[in-house]
């Protein structure tokens, strides 16, 4: 989404240490922390086809290779194909009253490709029965696939049998006497058959590398190339199984399915974003976007930046919530953040140790408790539902600032958002005792704030000036359903905000 702020001038520091503009951030109401797409758990909520808007269960989607059975896309331009009707005269030419026979063909409204172009016969029914093309490599692929399935299966069984042995819940007679099945077999003189589970699957024939390739046909050098008949790279990669060289071999491609994704905070396992199940709906059941909860900072103007000179910076604060908030601008203090990160690490380590001790003699440590996985990209493994999620620990912010911000002594109040304020012409009266040095102007839930910034003296011409500060605002939590006689809880929440002010200009 391109946001009205345009280039990312103002960035907020996420708990995971990344800097992002506010529309890309989420705010977990339960842990009161900022989250971004990098540090939440991505889960597949539902799988659907974007054309026929049908939900498809994940098992079925897997069988159909994540493609819709009924919808096709154009092999020429990758847009969706539509079914068109062609009437083909009456079914019985002698009888004038007999109904007109209808046939159907696929056509692309974008590039005018049609299934008739490649000689696919028209179908008598609208829903299809479109001929599928055989994949020439299907046998080989199936062979490889089967082998991997077997390997997976045997590994799973091996793991299970290991588990059973360790637990020792079901003590069999042979276990007690120390006589294994194989030893018993030997004793009675039977040949020793390896256990069915331990049987190694037969590997498929390995692929053979070849250095010699067929010579190019003569015609390729002598005849002029007809660009109209050759397919483009995109068109070939659309059909990886046959990769057609000429346009007359382009066949309609099944449409790839889309997913609806829900995002889960890794620390408290609450959803920060959950879409509605209905594929037609673009709404969300839960959508905790940061710009609905955290005051937005926008860059208004700054005087020409010169190294070592104090200039005036004007920024705008907007309160998006229904509650009044107080904003205090504090020092950026990246050291404090680093310290906090270190503390969290220590806490985590001790926890892990305890966990590991309590888990002793059980199965090897599961993925979540491995310390190194914290920073790794969320792998597909983690997106499996109900897996204990990897907790993303806060990390250090590595962005350097090269501009000092004079921290104002006073804080200021932002009134709640009022949707009707825009249409209300009557002059609003605020009884806030504003510091005139700090507040330049205010309107409804917005305030324009003056800050004095000084780019460092050692900056050269054309250097990008980055400044930052910590914004402390009061977040009013309404999450626990308002119990009687209980005020909504208020928290001080701190966000580190970074502004890219522009480039250093020369003196006068």
């Amino acid at each position, binding site marked *: 989404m391109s946001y009205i702020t345009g280039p990312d001038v103002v960035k907020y520091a996420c708990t995971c240490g990344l800097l992002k503009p506010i529309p890309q951030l989420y705010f977990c109401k339960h842990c009161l922390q900022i989250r971004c797409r990098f540090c939440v758990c991505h889960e597949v909520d539902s799988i659907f086809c974007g054309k026929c808007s049908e939900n498809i269960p994940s098992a079925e989607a897997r069988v159909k290779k994540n493609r819709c059975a009924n919808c096709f896309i154009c092999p020429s*331009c990758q847009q969706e194909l539509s079914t068109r009707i062609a009437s083909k005269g009456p079914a019985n030419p002698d009888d004038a009253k007999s109904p007109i026979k209808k046939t159907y063909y696929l056509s692309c409204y974008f*590039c005018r490709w*049609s299934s*008739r172009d490649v000689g696919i016969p028209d179908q008598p029914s609208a829903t299809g029965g479109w001929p599928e093309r055989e994949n020439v490599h299907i046998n080989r692929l199936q062979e490889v696939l089967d082998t991997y399935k077997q390997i997976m299966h045997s590994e799973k069984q091996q793991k299970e049998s290991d588990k059973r042995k360790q637990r020792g819940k079901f003590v069999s007679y042979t276990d007690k006497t120390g006589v294994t099945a194989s030893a018993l077999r030997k004793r009675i003189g039977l040949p020793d058959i390896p256990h069915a589970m331990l049987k190694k699957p037969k590997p498929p024939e390995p692929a053979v590398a070849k250095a010699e390739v067929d010579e190019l046909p003569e015609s390729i050098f002598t005849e002029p190339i007809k660009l*109209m008949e050759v397919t483009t790279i995109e068109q070939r990669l659309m059909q990886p199984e046959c990769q057609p060289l000429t*346009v007359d071999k382009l066949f309609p491609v099944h449409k790839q399915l889309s997913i609806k994704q829900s995002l889960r905070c890794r620390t408290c396992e609450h959803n920060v974003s959950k879409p509605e199940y209905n594929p037609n709906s673009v709404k969300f059941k839960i959508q905790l976007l940061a710009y609905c909860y955290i005051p937005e900072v926008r860059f208004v103007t700054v005087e020409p930046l010169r190294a070592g000179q104090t200039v005036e910076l004007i920024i705008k604060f907007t309160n998006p919530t229904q509650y009044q908030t107080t904003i205090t601008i504090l020092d950026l203090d990246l050291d404090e953040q680093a310290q906090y990160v270190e503390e969290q690490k220590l806490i985590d380590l001790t926890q892990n140790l305890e966990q590991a001790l309590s888990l002793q003699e059980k199965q090897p440590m599961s993925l979540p408790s491995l310390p190194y996985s914290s920073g790794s990209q969320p792998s597909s493994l983690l997106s499996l539902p109900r897996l204990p999620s990897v907790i993303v620990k806060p990390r250090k912010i590595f962005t350097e600032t090269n501009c000092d911000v004079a921290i104002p002594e006073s804080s200021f109040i932002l009134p709640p958002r009022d949707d009707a304020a825009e249409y209300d012409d009557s002059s609003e009266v605020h009884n806030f005792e504003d510091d005139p040095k700090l507040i330049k102007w205010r309107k409804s839930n917005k305030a324009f704030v003056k800050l004095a910034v000084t780019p460092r003296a050692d900056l050269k011409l054309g250097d990008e000036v980055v400044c930052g500060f910590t914004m402390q605002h009061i977040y009013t939590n309404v999450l626990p359903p308002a119990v009687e006689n209980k005020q909504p809880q208020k928290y001080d929440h701190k966000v580190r905000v970074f502004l890219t002010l522009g480039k250093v200009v020369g003196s006068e």
Partner: protein
Amino acid sequence: MARNSFKIFPGALVCEESKLRGDITVGAGTIIHPSASIIAEAGPIIIGENCLIEEQAKIIHRLPFDQQNKDNTPVLIIGSHNVFEVDCTIEAPKIGNNNVFESKCFVGNKVTVSNGCTIGAGCRITDEQILKENISIFGSKCQIRESIDKPVPQILQMETLMKILPNYHHIRKPNKKH
């Protein structure tokens, strides 16, 4: 510019609000929407039968700079069954039959359009060329492909317009006989 003179054949539907300039001949069955503009600047324009010229479409007969100031006045002949969709700008010096100019496309004055071509929405064709028959141009990169058949004529749509347009707009009276 030549004086305005319009020849409209019976069966054509030309809305009075449409902007016509110069010497224009409109064939039978052709529909010209109220805010279409047809400007015969360099010479007469002859529009064939059963063409559909939609809102905001601009057909301009304008010569390239290097061909101006010649003695003979060229005539822009537009064939039959052409569709000029909303907000297209066409300056081609010659147009055949059964072409579709989709919305917001632009065809420059050096491009000769033959028969059965489709110029996709938003495509800009400016280089000097002759478009082969049954070509369709589509996409932001103006990809070209050749179809085996000409685009399907919009008969249903034209029939509806023939009925509906006279209910809401003043129509220029046909002034030519067969």
